[in-house]
């Protein structure tokens, strides 16, 4: 197990390095540079050049890359935001918790709803219930987050103002009021992220449970005279979870993508919205920093997924 973890960690580090390099390069081949958005085109050329020099963008690509890596690995420094003129690390740390809350709450709810729905659909394969679950799931996949977000905001934020229409928390609250307020702000973004990602959980769990229910050990479980409830939830689900857990790890990338759209629509002050703003402003250090954090998150979650998987599958733990 230790050996396995070290190998996974090494692979993770390489993955992060590749992701960071790719981000670095992509940003610099994007048309335009930070000054195009920041400065009016009537500003004299010398000032523009001076600004580029301040940002370190006058040097050649390779030197920039070396400086970036040196700062990152020797000083654990992600640089300073071009636009906000504050350390990128501070900006990210103030935004990261909101995104983590949004994503983990959404993933948890998606799993808690999606897994049982998939199992029930599989057990009642071909029934009306199964078809209804399938149809609704596919409808969920087909929805575009900004569209769904706007519909939710219009009806539940404006027409019936149950939920706030933006932000993460009202300024100046403390204690339980703070938590209650933050929860209310979280509802609509979580609902739209969940609806869109629910389908893959349901359909995946359904397919793998259908496969498992045809296995011979399920017949053995019935031959032992176990209750149907036990046959399904103890003997089948534990096995069909195996492939679904792998899928959940891979699905994380899609959830990150979904979070960017969701946070933008709901003006939620997380990393996703930060990325959206930084892209508009060509704020390279912010983008480099956020992508680094996202890459690390994805790698860590995948390692966690592998650990959960090995716990579920005795063939891995025992060999």
């Amino acid at each position, binding site marked *: 197990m230790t050996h396995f973890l070290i190998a996974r960690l090494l692979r993770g580090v390489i993955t992060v390095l590749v992701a960071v390099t790719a981000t670095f390069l992509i940003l610099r081949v994007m048309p335009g540079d930070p000054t195009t958005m920041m400065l009016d085109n009537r500003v004299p050329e010398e000032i523009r050049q001076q600004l580029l020099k301040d940002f370190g963008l006058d040097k050649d690509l390779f030197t920039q890359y070396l400086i970036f890596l040196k700062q990152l690995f020797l000083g654990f420094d992600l640089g300073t935001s071009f636009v906000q003129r504050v350390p990128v690390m501070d900006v990210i740390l103030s935004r990261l918790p909101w995104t983590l809350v949004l994503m983990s709450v959404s993933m948890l709810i998606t799993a808690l709803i999606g897994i049982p729905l998939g199992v029930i659909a599989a057990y009642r394969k071909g029934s009306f219930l199964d078809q209804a679950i399938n149809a609704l799931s596919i409808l969920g996949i087909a929805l575009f987050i900004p569209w769904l977000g706007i519909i939710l905001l219009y009806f539940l934020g404006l027409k019936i103002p149950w939920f706030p229409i933006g932000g993460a928390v009202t300024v100046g609250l403390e204690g339980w009021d703070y938590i209650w307020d933050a929860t209310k702000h979280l509802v609509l973004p979580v609902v739209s992220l969940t609806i869109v990602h629910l389908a893959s959980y349901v359909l995946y769990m359904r397919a793998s449970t259908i496969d498992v229910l045809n*296995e*011979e*050990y399920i*017949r*053995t*479980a*019935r*031959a*032992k*005279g*176990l*209750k149907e409830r*036990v046959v399904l939830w103890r*003997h089948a689900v*534990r*096995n069909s979870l*195996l492939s679904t857990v792998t899928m959940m790890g891979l699905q994380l990338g899609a959830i990150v993508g979904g979070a960017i759209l969701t946070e933008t629509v709901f003006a939620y002050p997380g990393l996703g919205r930060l990325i959206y703003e930084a892209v508009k402003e060509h704020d390279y250090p912010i983008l480099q920093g956020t992508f680094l954090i996202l890459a690390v998150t994805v790698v860590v979650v995948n390692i966690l997924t592998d650990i959960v998987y090995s716990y*579920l*599958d*005795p*063939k891995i733990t*025992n060999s």
Partner: protein
Amino acid sequence: MSRDKPKVLEVKHVKTRIKMESKEYAIIEEIDFHVDSKETVGIVGESGCGKSMTALSIMGLLPENASVSEGEIRLQGTNLLTISKDAYRKKRGKEMSMIFQEPMSSLNPVYTIGFQLIELLREHTTMSKAKAKKKAIEMLQTVGIPRPHEVIDEYPHQLSGGMRQRVMIAMGLACNPDILIADEPTTALDVTIQAQILELMKRLQEQFDMAILLITHDLGVVAEVCDRVIVMYAGQIVEEAPVLTLFESPNHPYTKGLIASTPKIGEGKERLHTIEGTVPQLSEMPKGCRFATRCSEVTERCIRESPPLVELSEQVRCRCWLYPKTSGVSV
């Protein structure tokens, strides 16, 4: 085997239907037999003759698209087809149990051997966890598993095929059933292991006082362990006889063919006998005798009319127009 022995299992006129592509077919028809207490009855036949479906019909474990549509299945006198689903479930694993062909895939890969045994004991008895564990270890020992104290915490993939089949047998016997249904229990195993498993089953039958219904395509296995044999063809019983009688004087042309196609040591080097053709498809079941198309002694009557199962002597029944109704009644 005299007639007055108590019958553990009675199968009367059972017909099982399967639904495929919105059409219904009878996969087994007019199945009629019984198993006495402590007796071993074998069901033999080619793949697709309905022998496994017969076993699953008895256990109530038919696939979703199949069901028993006629007849009675009596276990110790109770008709299983009229009791509630839950009462039926409670008999499975306790009064009747079943072991399967593939020991490799018959155990749940994510739970330990102990968990799977203890779960069974706790379902059917009021044993405490500790007591069930003790009993589980004892059962593993009974079926000849070395170091049972360790095996109980191991997972199925850590055991060999033969060991897994022993575990399945331990689960089958743990609640002391009246009958054990074994569906090709040795087919997937090495020849040397096969012999061990058969021997084990015979020994445990004595020890646990139970009847065995053994389903196999292997006449060698039948000769070794069975008291009585039922030969099935295309979903029907075609012959039934005590094991020695069957091998010495088979009646039905199909049984003759089956015996002739079994290799025997020390007998010539000529080509092994084969029965030409295959079992008819469910959708193309002939109107007359189902074996007619492959039979070497076929007559015109065989193609026109389906022969009844006729009692030839006290314990011998045969479904063939070659044998007129002599003594018994047709069923």
